[in-house]
């Protein structure tokens, strides 16, 4: 095991290979507060990549309803239970990662979902985490809560899938940090399926190999965002590239939200993979739950989000506004601009969309309008 720097843990940790960061690192930000669980992203991915035999059950992108929704069943709680109670000391993680907690003879702590665990994606999950007393719906207070968690492969800096493959069939692309599984080399051992804490590698029983999200790299190579990003109805997603905290560039929208404003948080950073999909945490969820899921600093993130200033509100408006990757941004007055590396304007978004009032009564025909088709 090598010693590597994991900035999300605020410390060094043990990893199977020495630190070797790519030239650029693909990263994404998902706004949990805007997701409506329409699953358009799931279908966009499914139709693009996983419509073949043996891929029937695979969801490289899935959206689950937390706290009781999972795909596969119990993916996070099972691992957290195996890992046991761990501690943060401020922003420094004092617990053990999945690499540090590996059992004898193993490369990472993990578990294997069985077929049944994949059998009910997002079925019956939209139930509140408690009973709603009569009248509670009108009280203006959340007596019970849930939220939607959209998930793809995190294209981790320290992927457990990569570390666990005894054949070295998984690699991180040096040009963009996307983690890919070599389909010509894989022999279907499913070690990666066991080791990935996020369960984002899937075994294909027809081809006998494992498959995973490729962040639509043919699109990334053309400067375009992946399918699940551009098809997102709720416009919750933004793809780009992230810097190390010490190199953070406020003009880069990902750096700005993750490093400068510290608003976007990684998913289960304590597992030690330095995942590169970041989340704007849900605003209405008990802090304890959010903290376990998104690490320290969620209270700050929620506060900032709830009181977004013009820059922040403007930047969030760039989400889902263009198919192109927006490496730079700026706000001027009431407009936010998405810019190319050389400063060329890619997209312009108003801070506030104009309001159109649609009267209930159509004055021309003198009939009441209805929203039903």
């Amino acid at each position, binding site marked *: 095991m090598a010693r590597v720097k994991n900035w999300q843990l605020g410390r060094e940790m043990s990893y199977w290979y020495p630190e070797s960061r790519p030239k650029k690192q693909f990263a994404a930000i998902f706004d949990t507060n805007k997701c409506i669980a329409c699953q358009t992203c799931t279908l966009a991915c499914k139709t693009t990549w996983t419509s073949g035999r043996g891929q029937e059950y695979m969801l490289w992108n899935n959206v689950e309803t937390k706290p009781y929704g999972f795909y596969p069943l119990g993916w996070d709680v099972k691992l957290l239970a195996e890992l046991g109670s761990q501690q943060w000391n401020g922003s420094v993680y004092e617990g053990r990662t999945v690499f540090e907690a590996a059992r004898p003879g193993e490369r990472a702590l993990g578990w294997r979902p069985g077929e049944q665990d994949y059998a009910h994606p997002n079925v019956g999950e939209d139930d509140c985490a408690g009973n709603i007393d009569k009248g509670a719906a009108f009280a203006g207070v959340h007596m019970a809560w849930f939220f939607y968690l959209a998930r793809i492969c995190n294209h981790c800096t320290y992927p457990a899938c990569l570390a666990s493959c005894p054949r070295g069939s998984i690699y991180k692309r040096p040009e963009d940090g996307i983690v890919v599984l070599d389909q010509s080399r894989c022999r279907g051992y499913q070690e990666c399926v066991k080791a990935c804490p996020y369960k984002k590698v899937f075994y294909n029983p027809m081809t*006998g190999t494992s498959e995973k999200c490729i962040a639509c790299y043919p699109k990334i190579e053309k400067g375009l965002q992946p399918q699940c990003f551009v098809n997102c109805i709720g416009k919750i997603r933004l793809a780009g590239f992230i810097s190390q905290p010490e190199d953070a560039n406020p003009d880069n929208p990902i750096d700005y939200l993750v490093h400068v404003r510290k608003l976007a948080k990684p998913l289960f950073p304590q597992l030690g993979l330095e995942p590169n999909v970041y989340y704007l945490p849900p605003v209405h969820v008990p802090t304890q739950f959010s903290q376990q899921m998104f690490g320290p600093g969620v209270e700050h993130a929620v506060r900032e989000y709830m009181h977004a200033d013009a820059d922040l509100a403007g930047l969030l408006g760039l989400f889902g506004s263009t198919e192109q990757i927006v490496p730079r941004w700026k706000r001027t007055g009431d407009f936010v601009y998405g810019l190319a590396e050389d400063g060329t304007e890619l997209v312009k978004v108003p801070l506030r969309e104009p309001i159109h009032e649609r009267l209930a009564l159509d004055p021309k025909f003198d009939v009441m309008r209805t929203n039903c088709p």
Partner: protein
Amino acid sequence: MKSSRIVLVVSLTAAVGLPGCSQSQPIVAPVEVVVQPSTVELPDDPLDARWDSVVAFPAALIPQDMVEPRQLRVSTREVRVRALSDGVRVAFRLEWSDATRDDMPMPAAFTDACAIQLPAAISADVPAPQMGEPDRSVEITLWRASWQATVDGRGDTIQDIHPNAVPDHYPFEAASLESGSDIQRAMQQRYAPARALDNPMSGPREQPVEDLIGHGPGTLAPAATTSSTGRGKRVADGWAVVVTRRLPEGLASGKRTQVAFAIWEGGSEEVGARKMRTGWAPLLLEVKP
């Protein structure tokens, strides 16, 4: 001097062995795998009665606990090996106990399997028994129960695993695509990337075995072609598998090389490096009488 004494022991014990597979075990266990000569076609059926008169070598299995992921639990303890040769090819018959048939390809399900390993070059100085070394390779032939099931007729669809599964639609089965046309086939391949890249793992299969080359742990690679054949069947308490491959180059009658075996018990999640294996055992190509 020592080796000729061993041959004597083997021949003697073979001579006193009673007919019938289960009864042919010598009183003193042989200390090497003796490839007995055969003047007729090699039996490819593990239940062929001709195997009954071939002496079985009981190879003790140990867990692969040298490289991660390690096998830390002892599962299959022994594989009984018989071997016959027609002077060109060698047929190995492996039999081991395994209470469950594991041959379904599914998430978190693993297949029963066995493998035979020989040094690529005959030498007194053998490569490491764990898949060889960078400059001293080993030749491996792998048999898998899941491949056997495919060769025996199990189809290539989700319904072959789950008869009641109902997939909505495959794009390559759209009515607008002529079935079997180039466009249709290309589209089907697009959703089977391992097949598109000719990964030999990805099927469809004509043989339940694959020839492989190893240069050390983690280096296993398919041989240029698979010339070996195989056939496995369930027997009363496990599997009996015949794997027939070419005789190691340079192995003349009366000469020796080394051989090693591995067994995977799918039901115990054994796959890849998680396996029970032997060390090298001497292998003698017996002189024709």
